[in-house]
């Protein structure tokens, strides 16, 4: 199941607050959760099925004109 909007928003604002506390002048946080399913047929036969479940955070921070970006799925 895809996590609800509220949970994702909370995680994003936690990251932004934390970056600010550490001295960032600006920051953006991207929190995503996606679930996808793909099925491939080849020569009229089932060949491959794939399910993907991905929760991720990307945090970009600026101090003045300096920029740094990290991402994690842990």
């Amino acid at each position, binding site marked *: 199941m895809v996590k609800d909007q509220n949970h994702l928003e909370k995680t994003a604002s936690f990251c932004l607050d934390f970056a600010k506390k550490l001295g960032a002048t600006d920051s953006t946080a991207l929190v995503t959760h996606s679930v996808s399913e793909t099925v491939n047929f080849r020569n009229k036969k089932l060949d491959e099925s794939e*399910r993907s*479940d991905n929760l991720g955070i990307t945090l970009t921070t600026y101090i003045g004109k300096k920029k740094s970006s*990290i991402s994690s799925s842990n």
Partner: protein
Amino acid sequence: MNDFFSKTDLSRKDAEAVISETLNKCDDGELYLENSKSESIVLDDNKIKSSSYSSDLGYGLRAVTGEVVAYSHSNEISKNSLKQSANNLSSTLKSKKGIYNHEIPKTNEKLYKDINPIEEKSLNSKLELLKEVNNYTRAKGGIVQQVTASFAGEHKSIEIIRAGGEVLTDVRPLIRFNVSVMLEKNGKKETGVYGIGGRQSYDEYLKDDNWKKVCDEAFRIASVNLESKAAPAGEMKVVLGPGWPAILIHEAIGHGLEGDFNRKKTSAFHNLMGQRVASEGVTIVDDGTLHNRRGSLTIDDEGTPTEKTVLIENGILKNFMQDRLNARLMSTRSTGSGRRESYKHVVLPRMRNTMMLNGKYSQEEMIKSVDKGIFAVSFGGGQVDITSGKFVFNCTEAYEIINGKIGSPIKGATLIGDGPSILKEVSLVGNNMMLDPGIGTCGKAGQGVPVGVAQPSILIDKMTVGGTQL
């Protein structure tokens, strides 16, 4: 070693039970766990332009029966998530029945040390070094317009758990250091790029000022190109230099020798096993067992130890590169070539270090034998249709050959052809085999994996050169 079960409600025992239950009616499959950390720092225009760090943890559960692969991956290692994956696999394969193949060869060998390139040196020391690289390269003269230098490091821990509880693990370090220099002289601008890398400690690349050699080489390539003239066009003899130009063999020939394209009969080589596909004297191997090399793996991503696979021996097609699925369907064994970019990707048969072995001729002999042709020393980008082997490569360093002598550097030369035909046009194989500096990434089906290439100088009798000289 990473403990994948320390921070989750999923115990190793639970995971083993789910794996065995899901896979017991399948031909093959495993749970693949991965924890990778990567870092990259770029210096450009006299300042640190960007630094990035990425950490990724997740699993991929795979079940294979017959030709069908069911795969489910997630970056949440938990009881719930693994169960969902197992249900997904079971419902895909519910009408299929297989017999699980427990056989997997073992190895005690380690081809690289357990080094963490990200932690072994502080971020500050890397930043300082990039600044030193910038100063050193810019000090080469007023013609230096721009210097871009970068470090990239990766540390990947994997664990494979098979049905029955068999566990296979590997820890893979990877480093890449790159320098690009732009020069300007008399209104003409040229760029030179050079890089090194492999599965070793940062110190190996940076000791004894090894990094200076990278800067020198990037500067040299740009300087050569400043003096270059327009490339000739048409069909002519081409001498390929040793080392990195083997990327042409990788792209134009190597992909065609991968098991999946041959099982599906889409490769130009699929019905040529045991037949002559190249000139006498051409021997091509794919070797995953070279210590510390970029394309080397102690075990592949299915747990099979890698090996040196002879693909073409003296011009005769001997073997394809196989993962477990294609090997089973083609009634042969895996060559330890099953690789995936990450836990988010299915296993495919892939190359490791693809090499043309030495012949007996010297590079001088080859050049002497050419009346009119080109000597291609290094390639940049290119395009290739990996099943037919049709390619276009851009030379980043090349020279004309006139009457057996190397002439002026040429700019904008492209090499056009197709792998299977080129193999038959190789007339002389050199005795100066060289490995590439450790920079290659191979793309297939949207997955990028690190690879190596190697070759001696070779003379190709007939190749289309795309140039701009009229």
